[in-house]
């Protein structure tokens, strides 16, 4: 049941991203699935985050019409790195979270780029530039979303503590 929920949440993130991207050009550069992975790695379970990364990546490959595995590999790796950093460092600082999401996004894109080379697949010259822009926009959006989530959790905790 838990893994069905993971798959559904991944699927919804991709659908939301596609719909937003169709209507607003800039949303093409927002990687909602990576934010979902980061949420899972930071707030839930690192192990589950790896599965979310893999499932989301494979779904993304299917939607993009790519051979399955490019994004599956990249997103799983990103999930691992986010989980690892979240465990070892204090990531409550805003700038730290921003840097973490941007780095994870860059790592994901870079691994896909390397896999392209390994699989002898040609790629667009603007792939790396666009990936960097995607990383920055995703980093900013993720940081804002996480800050909002923290505020919400704090407010709920305050309410619960009041007599």
């Amino acid at each position, binding site marked *: 049941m838990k893994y069905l929920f993971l798959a559904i949440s991944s699927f919804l993130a991709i659908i939301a991203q596609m719909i937003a991207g169709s209507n607003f050009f800039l949303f093409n550069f927002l990687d909602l699935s990576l934010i979902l992975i980061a949420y899972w790695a930071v707030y839930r379970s690192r192990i589950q985050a790896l599965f979310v990364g893999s499932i989301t*990546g494979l779904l993304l490959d299917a939607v993009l019409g790519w051979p399955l595995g490019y994004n599956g590999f990249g997103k799983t790796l990103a999930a691992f790195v986010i989980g690892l950093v979240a465990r070892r460092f204090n990531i409550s600082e805003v700038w730290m979270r921003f840097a973490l999401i941007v780095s994870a996004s860059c790592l994901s894109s870079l691994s896909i780029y390397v896999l392209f080379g390994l699989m002898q697949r040609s790629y667009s010259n603007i792939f790396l530039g666009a990936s960097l822009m995607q990383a920055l926009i995703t980093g900013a959006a993720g940081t804002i979303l996480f800050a909002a989530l923290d505020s919400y959790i704090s407010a709920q905790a305050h309410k619960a503590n009041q007599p």
Partner: protein
Amino acid sequence: VSIEIELAPKIKEGRALAVLVPLLLLNLTLLSVQVRDPAGTLLFRKWVLLAEAPIFNAASSASKTTLNLWRDYIWLHGAREENRRLQESLRQLAGQATELKQLQQENLRLRSLVTLGETIPYTTTGAHVVGRTPNYMANVLYVDRGSADGVGLDAPVLSGSGVIGRVVLVWRHNAQVQLITNPDASIGVLLDRTRTPGVLKGTGDPSLDLGYISSSEQVEVGDVVMSSGLDGIFPKGLMVGKVVESRKGSSIFRIIRVEPFADLMHIEEVSILRRETIRPPSSEDSFELKPKGSGNNDGSQ
């Protein structure tokens, strides 16, 4: 009152790695059983062979020495026979090529006698674009027509200004279209001015590569490129794009870049050709052409 945000529970490093490695391997294996190298060999098979190669080499070198003379003799004997057969077939092919050239010239002469346009009417299905992936990533889009509407696999997809791509996946009410800019896409084309055939390949960029045009050909910027019909997917005579760059390369072929006529970034509606109306080109085409507007087309082309 300071409230601590509860983060993910701490997990031992080894446990995460134990999950990470199989997942990464799973993705790599998935990729390797789908992706082929330029020669068409599955990368998985290539890698397996690569791993097996040293073992094979060691085993074969043991028996190689004793069998060399005998095998070389057999091989040379076979080569002589094969050489004789190849020369014979070369002579036959040269004869066929001459015959084909004569037929082409005859076809051209007959065509000039028939006052018909190049455009052939086909049955088309109109479709809306309902989704697209960022162009720099995939160069595919989704349309709201599927097998229930008569859309078939490999059906050519057009806009008002030219070829967009072909259908690569079909569901009942939707289809996935691979744009001509996709690195996996290619079309058989010819240059309208010189009638030189070539192969147009997507690069992932907004412009396309036109390959297999000899360096001796005169190709100029602005030359119109249209489908040749030789790929068995796109019928002949569909407008594809125009040449934006043409120069001699280091190989025997020219380096030619082509810009599609269709604005692939802003497509909202497309036409999909119905497979049953598309015929492969034949030497009798000039006699089967129908005038524009006639025939059983429910859409228009």
